[in-house]
């Protein structure tokens, strides 16, 4: 019925088809050239014997222009922050400044070897130290490791330290309390560290139920993992009471810093009772998501946890130079080789420099302002399951639209036709049919208005022609993919077609 809906952002344009790189390969094509060998040639068969590889199988042979076109064409099939708003809740898809990319590629930093002598590593060490100092000031914590490769590894590191701390007191304890609104990595991490997971119910305002916590808290509890603001975008107002309840029984308060974008320069976890937390540099500090990584998950702790930090830690030596300290007998050990995702440290620090104290405060204010603007714009059109004030993100539900059989995922797919990436669907688990929206500070009012208009327009479509929404997307390169078939009989790699099928 509605064949030509109003689309203010998206329009038709040529999109090119492109096969797999293997389908373009033919013998003799090449995009590489090596300099002439300045040492004697070697007889590989003699040197390697049966270890010599004779065939590289189906590796491609293509020319440089084909490579450029191949990946450029593929890239045009992606949505990206550079194309518009990415309203993914709890993912903090903010603008990735290009100066970050530029400075990360400066020769001495990009080519620094992790094992080069400290004497010629002062630049890298200074970057690590400066970033550490900034992050400690931002979080209000006492000590930090930059080593974890991503948020989930930060959680792992944090919980390993929690465990080591309790063991040093003679009892590792048995379980971790996790609110039912938490991200899936929280329980997965607790299990990795050998703790049992106990769920903690949220109250009718979407916050940790303090009475339930008091009832569940005992000396078997090693820590509570809380996200603040939580995944509903709600600040845990009784956070200090929560901390006190934990601390009274010797437990620790772990904060998942996924939503730190709501707090930077406005409130510090170290001031409201948090003992250990991780940050996601690829969320709060603008390092790019790159289609799923790399991340970086520094872990900041209070003083009593400092002895347990992974090795090595950056220290200032008596002569004023910086170095790595390895001799830390109480350390939980290494969580990865070398020192962490150093390239992300550079980008995060460049972001902090570009903002300074004023800029960071403004950033947080704008992020919260933008979320509340969307909330106001869509209130009434979509069901708001919790009317508790929102910080940097807002969670609606599909309650009104599901009466017509249209679920959050369907609405999200239709949003693609309007030129927006879908919001986070079906999370947090405590909201059935959740629409979780986080605009970040990067979005100008014009983009927010387009988004609100798109969402309202989709809601109207649901009333008029729900099937049209159910069949979305209509303008994407491909329609909805058969995920069940993909999982039932997985095809995880290309294989050449055989002559005898």
């Amino acid at each position: 019925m509605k064949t030509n809906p109003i689309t203010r952002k998206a329009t038709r344009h040529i999109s090119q088809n492109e096969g797999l790189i293997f389908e373009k390969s033919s013998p003799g094509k090449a995009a590489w050239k090596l300099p002439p060998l300045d040492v004697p040639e070697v007889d590989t068969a003699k040197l390697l014997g049966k270890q010599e590889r004779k065939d590289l199988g189906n590796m491609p042979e293509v020319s440089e222009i084909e490579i450029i076109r191949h990946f450029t064409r593929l890239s045009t099939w992606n949505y990206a922050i550079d194309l518009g708003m990415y309203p993914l809740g709890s993912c903090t898809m903010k603008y990735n400044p290009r100066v970050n990319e530029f400075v990360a590629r400066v020769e001495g930093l990009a080519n620094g070897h992790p094992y080069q002598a400290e004497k010629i590593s002062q630049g890298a060490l200074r970057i690590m130290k400066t970033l550490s100092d900034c992050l400690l000031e931002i979080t209000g914590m006492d000590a930090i490791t930059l080593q974890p490769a991503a948020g989930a590894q930060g959680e792992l590191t944090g919980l390993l330290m929690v465990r080591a701390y309790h063991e040093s007191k003679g009892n590792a304890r048995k379980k971790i309390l996790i609110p039912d609104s938490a991200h899936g990595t929280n329980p997965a991490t607790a299990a990795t560290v050998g703790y049992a997971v106990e769920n903690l119910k949220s109250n009718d305002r979407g916050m940790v139920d303090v009475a339930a916590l008091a009832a569940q808290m005992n000396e078997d509890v090693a820590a509570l993992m809380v996200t603040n603001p939580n995944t509903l975008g709600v600040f845990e107002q009784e956070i200090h009471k929560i901390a006190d309840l934990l601390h009274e029984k010797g437990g620790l308060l772990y904060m998942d810093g996924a939503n730190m974008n709501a707090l930077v320069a406005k409130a510090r976890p170290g001031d409201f009772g948090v003992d250990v937390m991780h940050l996601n540099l690829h969320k709060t500090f603008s390092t790019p998501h790159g289609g799923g990584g790399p991340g970086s998950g520094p872990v900041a702790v209070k003083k009593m946890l400092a002895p347990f930090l992974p090795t090595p830690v950056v220290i200032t030596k008596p002569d004023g130079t910086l170095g790595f300290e390895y001799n830390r007998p109480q350390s939980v050990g290494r969580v990865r080789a070398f020192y962490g995702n150093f390239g992300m440290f550079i980008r995060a620090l460049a972001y902090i420099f570009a903002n300074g104290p004023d800029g960071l405060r403004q950033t947080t204010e704008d992020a919260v302002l933008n979320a509340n603007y969307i909330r106001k714009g869509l209130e009434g059109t979509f069901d708001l399951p919790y009317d508790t004030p929102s910080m940097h993100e807002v969670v609606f539900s599909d309650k009104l639209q599901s009466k017509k059989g249209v679920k959050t995922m369907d609405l999200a797919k239709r949003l693609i036709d309007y030129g927006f990436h879908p919001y986070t669907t079906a999370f947090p688990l405590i909201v059935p049919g959740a629409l979780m929206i986080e605009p970040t500070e990067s979005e100008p009012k014009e983009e927010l208005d387009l988004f609100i208009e798109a969402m309202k327009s989709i809601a109207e479509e649901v009333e008029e022609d729900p099937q049209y929404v159910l069949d979305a997307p209509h303008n994407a390169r491909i329609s909805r993919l058969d995920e069940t078939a993909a999982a039932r009989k997985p095809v995880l790699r290309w294989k050449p077609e055989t002559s005898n099928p």
Partner: protein
Amino acid sequence: MLQAIGIRSVDELFAPIPAEYRLSRDLTIPRQMAESEIVDWFKQRAKENGEGYTSFLGAGAYFHYRPVVIDALVQRGEFLTSYTPYQAEFAQGTLQAIFEFQTMISELTGMDLANASMYDGSTGAAEAVMMAVRVTGRQTAVIARNLHPEYREVLNTYATHQEIPQKLVSYTDSGTIDLKELEAAVDGDTACVLIQSPNFFGTIEDIEAIADIAHKKGALLIVSIAEAASLGIVEPPRQADIVAMEAQSFGVPLGFGGPYCGVLATKEKFVRQMPGRLAGQTVDKNGKRGFVLTLATREQHIRREKATSNICTNQALVALMVNIFMTVYGKVGLRELAKQNLAKTVYAAEQFDKHAKVLFAGAPRFNEFVVQTSEDPYAINSRLLGHKIVGGLPLKKFYPELGNAALWCCTELTTRSMIDTAVGLVAESERSVRTMKDVEPEEVAR
């Protein structure tokens, strides 16, 4: 906007934070800087960071040439600034690229399939061990001592609370794993044998023999590969059950240790125990080929505490660098590249052997070798630094039994004149130490 929301000031939005926790002062961090100042600051730091030095370091981080098309392509905003491709219709570019990555990694490692990436080679190896424990239902891991020492440290951290006891197996005087000791270590409780090849000393392991020992007792064989470039000329570990690889050599900058690109590859029958994201091929409603993230029921966002791993974010953009690198060099180039690495290393090892002792000559090697000197390698390196040369990695910290030994590395970027200069300087110090020995043997022995 304030008006639309119905508030007077933005402060009202922060009212949910109890007043006593609201920060009423400026953060004590550096002031806001202009772009030009930011660029200056980092260029200064780069100057303090070994810019312009020639390096012979390897040991899990290799200096190979990075074709310029890599950065030209990965800096396209559609790759750089896109999210994890959960919404497949809007992320086909990333998904198809992952599918191609998985295919090429499978081809190169000789495995049936590969995942979309892990954090790095060290965590990949640790995850592979945990995977083997799930597959076999056994608990013990047998680990080669010539596996990268930092990989072993990471494994220790991961394994401690999984209650996975480890047995270490030593190396022979060819630098490769001691097969007799290995045979004695593997028993009915062994979940896996984890080795590295080329190993930390640069020598190539006899995968077939090791696989036989592991498989005879029903254990899995995990092969860690830290130098991916070796796969161009060294037979891949086809007899392994899991390959845990660090793909940094394929177009990823050294970057002072990260971000790198771990990846796991395995046999088809183990796929449901594999951690990490997987892209799979499927069709849309109209029968058109497309790609999705699949088998998500293994992962934390679905299974929570019962997931195969807690991994979420991976190394997608770095995997794309690896992907482009593999595409540029391809079937022929990867072999030629590896041959150059081999030739430079053979030349360098021969030169060093004239003046010092090159250890572990009994097994073939790829692009690293251990040089034993009379003098402490830290002292040698300190002198080399004066000539803007970064010498090999002293091994005392990790393998005290090797004495004054250092691990040297050559790649296609190491020139003959660089090798000759370094060898000359090492030879000079060796001569002077020997002369001193003749004069005052006791003092030197101290």
